[in-house]
């Protein structure tokens, strides 16, 4: 019970000694207090002053907290306290005791110090537990004096004694007297502490800011933050998470989870991307103040992000989350394993971290860009070396995997029809779980107006399809996409300039737009190259096949030895051919239609060292004027309207072989000029191309025109003529080699008997006679056709009749033939003809003289004059 009896110091007139003692104590204490530096010095000084005058065991000071009406230990008597070994001592130091209890209310309402015998009060229901603890420590009595500040109670000074007679009126008087001084001292201590703390925080932040200013890398930041936290006595962990490029997730950026983290968990935590809106991270980002989280409560709340589970496993109970932002832009969050939030300090730290973070991220962005660019360069130079699809595929797979962390879903290319898109390349591994479905879908040729393709082709830089959204809208492809677990399908057009090459499809959660664009344009070029290469290869292949086939054909038909005719004029031709074949000399073959100019050309080629390659033939008369150039020299894709592909010209095809230019006389002047240039330079440029191509071609030209005449008439370039007319071979017309007619006839009969299946064993002498007496304006070709026709019309195994045309056309031709000759020539030719037809009989019945209606001797003298010998009409 409160001992009011002892509370009478104020009622009695104080004795002189008491007053003096009191004054001395006050004076000394006043002096002491100015010396107080450490808060517990106050207790020590105060105790030492009082100790000499009065008896007590120890003393403490408690403070009131108005917000919850409690009081708690503030200054302790670390030497004198007898309860320091008591098991509940720590608890007492940390505890808050309610002001709403009779024990303390009595002190609050009294103007005098109040004492209690502990035994009387300590076990009352609302009495604070420290009473009993002190009792157990040997204390028997307590004297409570309240400390006031600005008219309000601010705390208490507790005096304890192990006797029950210590707190006499003098003692109480002194206590009451010095209470205001103590109050002042305590207030000062509190204020000093606050100031000191502020000072400490300020200098801490200053240090931190100079550390942060030196931060250049992630690692620097890590150690700066770690050092700072350790300085704040926060030995525990922290994580800085940054918002990822996709703007929808965050990942650990800098962290130190201390010893709590095991390697495995850590590697998972560090790599993971956590959705910003996971119900926790977004709360931190949306809060301008630090938030204190309880791990267990957040799990209970239903937040599923895995980090909470890991943290729980690591033993974290509470943590603080603060957003990191640069101006108005959220950069990420700082998560700290602490319990107490010093707002200003934390916000100071975070402001600094944010600046450093923004700088590092900007730096990283730049070096990442540089890296990306360097990479793209490497990639591009690697791609230029690729010639096959397999090489390209390997390169593409690698780049997508390494740089973009993704896999190729599909590259489709536009077919030549400009409508269909066929599969070019894909990464089967991507659809590991759904091979069959994928193969089914991939097998479909799709058209450019297919919904997704159309959207992609219409876009400039591609379209991102959200897999889930597409799934909801009933997209068949999306079902397949979903099997990969990736969030977005990126469809991009592959374009070369304005030309669409195809489309590329990539599945990923997120792809950086810039890099994607770069890689796609590289892939475009590579795909286009490969496609061109493939076409070229296919074309070459086809040519090779043709070549083999033709070679075969040529071997069977056109043998040097198969040129029939052993007459004098042909002997001369053979001689010339023999001379020229081995060399690379240009040969000009002249002769009427059907004289076998091509045959001769092939024979020359086959007799030359170039014979292993196919002779390439161009019929200059058969070429449309506007295509001659591209036919001869080739063109690049897009060189002119309709030039949809690159084309190799005949000259290039005849490289290391022979080019046979038939009907060279029909070549238009413009093309002649180009041809001349190629012949002179031995090199060419494709139409629309810039590259000069060296060629090694042997030229054989042929014409039935009189090129000299053509030159004179201005239809043929003189310079070209000279270039071509290096080694002319003139093929005689058939009518000038009647001696070969029989052999040729046998040859053709044999040839066509074989091909028609009719066996002609004999040729009637009359037939030979008939054939010899015809003028053959169509030359050997005419003879060949005639024999073919005649065999078909033959009724038995003897060719007894031929059907020499007697039509107006032939007459006209003959006439034209005749018209071109001098009288003497005509006369000579006619006499020879007639002699031949008459079997060489000059006079008498059925003789030439009879036919010519001149006397026999007149014919004789004319023959002599014209130099007609037996060999002219006998063969």
């Amino acid at each position, binding site marked *: 019970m409160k001992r009011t009896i002892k509370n009478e110091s104020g009622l009695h007139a104080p004795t002189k000694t008491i007053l003096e003692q009191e004054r001395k104590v006050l004076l000394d204490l006043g002096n002491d207090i100015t010396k107080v530096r450490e808060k517990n010095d106050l207790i020590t000084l105060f105790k030492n002053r009082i100790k000499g005058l009065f008896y007590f065991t120890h003393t403490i000071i408690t403070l009131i*907290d*108005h*917000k*919850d*009406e409690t009081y708690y230990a503030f200054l302790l008597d670390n030497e004198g306290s007898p309860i320091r070994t008591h098991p509940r001592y720590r608890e007492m130091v940390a505890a808050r005791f309610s002001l*709403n209890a009779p024990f303390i209310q009595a002190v609050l309402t009294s103007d005098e110090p109040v004492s209690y015998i502990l035994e009387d009060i300590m076990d009352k229901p609302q009495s604070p537990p420290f009473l009993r603890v002190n009792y157990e420590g040997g204390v028997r009595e307590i004297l409570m004096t309240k400390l006031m500040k600005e008219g309000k109670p601010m705390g208490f000074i507790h005096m304890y004694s192990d006797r029950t007679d210590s707190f006499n009126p003098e003692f109480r008087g002194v206590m009451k007297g010095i209470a205001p001084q103590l109050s002042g001292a305590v207030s000062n201590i509190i204020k000093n502490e606050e100031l000191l703390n502020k000072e400490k925080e300020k200098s801490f932040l200053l240090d931190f800011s100079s550390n942060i200013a030196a931060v250049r890398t992630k690692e620097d930041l890590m150690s700066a933050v770690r050092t700072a936290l350790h300085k704040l006595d926060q030995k525990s962990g922290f994580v800085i998470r940054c918002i990822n490029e996709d703007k929808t997730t965050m990942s650990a950026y800098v962290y130190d989870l201390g010893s709590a983290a095991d390697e495995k968990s850590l590697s998972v935590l560090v790599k993971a991307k956590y959705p910003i809106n996971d119900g926790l991270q977004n*709360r931190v980002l*949306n*809060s*301008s*103040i*630090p*938030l*204190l*989280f*309880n791990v267990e*409560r957040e799990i209970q709340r239903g937040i599923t992000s895995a980090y909470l589970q890991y943290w729980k496993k690591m033993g974290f109970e509470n943590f*603080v989350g603060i957003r990191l932002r640069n101006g108005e832009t959220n950069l990420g969050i700082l998560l700290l394993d602490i319990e*107490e*939030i010093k*707002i*200003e300090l934390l916000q100071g730290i975070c402001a600094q971290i944010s600046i450093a973070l923004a700088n590092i991220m900007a730096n990283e962005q730049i070096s990442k860009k540089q890296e990306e660019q360097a990479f793209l360069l490497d990639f591009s130079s690697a791609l230029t070396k690729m010639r096959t699809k397999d090489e390209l595929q390997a390169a593409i797979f690698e780049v997508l995997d390494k740089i973009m962390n993704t896999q190729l879903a599909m590259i489709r290319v536009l077919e030549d029809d400009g409508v269909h898109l066929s599969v070019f390349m894909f990464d089967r591994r991507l659809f590991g779980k759904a091979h069959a479905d994928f193969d089914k879908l991939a097998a479909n040729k799709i058209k450019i107006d297919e919904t997704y393709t159309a959207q992609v082709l219409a876009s400039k830089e591609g379209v991102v399809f959200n897999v889930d959204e597409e799934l909801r809208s009933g997209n068949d492809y999306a079902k397949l996409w979903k099997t990969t677990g990736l969030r977005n399908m990126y469809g991009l057009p592959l374009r070369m300039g304005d030309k669409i090459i195809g489309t590329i499809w990539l599945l990923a959660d997120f792809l950086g737009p810039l890099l994607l664009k770069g890689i796609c344009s590289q892939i475009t070029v590579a795909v286009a190259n490969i496609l061109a290469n493939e076409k070229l290869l296919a074309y070459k292949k086809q040519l090779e096949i043709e070549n083999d086939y033709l070679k075969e054909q040529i071997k069977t038909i056109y043998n040097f030895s198969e040129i029939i005719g052993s007459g004098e004029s042909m002997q001369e031709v053979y001689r010339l051919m023999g001379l020229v074949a081995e060399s690379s000399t240009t040969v000009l073959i002249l002769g009427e239609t059907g004289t076998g100019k091509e045959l001769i050309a092939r024979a020359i080629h086959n007799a030359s060292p170039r014979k292993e390659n196919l002779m390439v033939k161009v019929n200059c008369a058969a070429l449309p004027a506007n295509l001659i150039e591209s036919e001869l020299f080739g063109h690049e894709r897009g060189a002119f309207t309709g030039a949809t592909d690159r084309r190799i010209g005949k000259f290039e095809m005849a490289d290391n072989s022979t080019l046979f230019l038939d009907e060279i006389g029909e070549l238009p002047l413009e093309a002649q000029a180009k041809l001349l240039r190629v012949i002179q330079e031995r090199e060419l440029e494709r139409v629309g191309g810039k590259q000069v191509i060296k060629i090694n071609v042997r030229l054989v030209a042929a014409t039935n025109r009189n090129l000299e005449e053509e030159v004179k008439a201005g239809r043929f370039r003189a310079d070209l003529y000279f270039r071509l007319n290096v080694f002319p071979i003139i093929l005689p017309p058939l009518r000038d080699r009647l001696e070969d007619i029989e052999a040729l006839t046998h040859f053709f009969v044999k040839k066509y008997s074989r091909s028609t299946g009719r066996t002609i064993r004999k040729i009637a002498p009359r037939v030979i006679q008939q054939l010899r007496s015809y003028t053959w304006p169509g030359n050997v070709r005419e003879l060949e056709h005639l024999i073919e026709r005649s065999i078909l019309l033959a009724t038995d195994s003897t060719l007894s009749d031929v059907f020499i045309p007697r039509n107006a056309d032939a007459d006209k031709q003959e006439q034209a033939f005749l018209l071109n000759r001098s009288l003497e020539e005509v006369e000579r030719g006619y006499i020879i003809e007639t002699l031949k037809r008459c079997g060489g009989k000059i006079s008498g019945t059925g003789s030439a003289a009879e036919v010519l209606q001149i006397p026999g001797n007149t014919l004789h003298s004319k023959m002599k004059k014209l130099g007609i010998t037996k060999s002219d009409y006998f063969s």
Partner: protein
Amino acid sequence: MKIVVIGGTGLIGTKVVNQLRQAGHQVIAASPATGINTLTGEGLAEAMKETDIVIDLANSPSFEDKAVMEFFQTAGHNLLAAEINAGVKHHVALSIVGVDIMQNIGYMRAKKVQEELIEQSGVPYTIVRSTQFLEFIAGIANQATDGNEVHLSDVLFQPIASDDVAKFVAKYALAAPLNGRVEIAGPERFEMYKIVERYLQLANDPRTVVPNGKPAYFGGEVTHSALVPAGEAEQGAINFESWWATQAVKA
């Protein structure tokens, strides 16, 4: 139960804190003065630890339109975030009768935002909408004073004593969350100029009240019945005269 009263040192706050303490609850009177600040977040998270009920009775130090909006927005946002994190089970706030029909007044817009933040927070809540406090009559007179005249309209007015407000607030705080609003008002309805006239008379204030027929509240035009409950409202026990009697005693 542990209860935190934000604005626990204010007019209503002090009373609510006392009532709840007397009922044996552990109560924290939170205000910047006691180291808990909803604007800066200082002390907030610590105060919220293990807290069951939060009663928000704070008021903006400035009534200027922008400042008051910022106060209720930021304070509401921070307070609710801290409550969510601490798992607080009931949030009680004191709002104003007619708040949604007086949106032309800046202060009302801010209080409405405060209400909306609460409704959207996910924390179980009860919003108590009160009419003006009797203690507020002096303030109304002051803001309507022009020289020696007080210009006021006959807008309907049903002021409530702060003791009654505190009682109601404490009652609703301890009850289950309504996740809705209740209205409280004084037991008598007046025309505003008349009750102010009476108040000045009792207080021996020399100013004279001039009725102007223009229903207004703090400078903003309002409807004739904007300040009184439209429907059901709980009524306080203390009428004007008995309130005045206690005021006189205090003075």
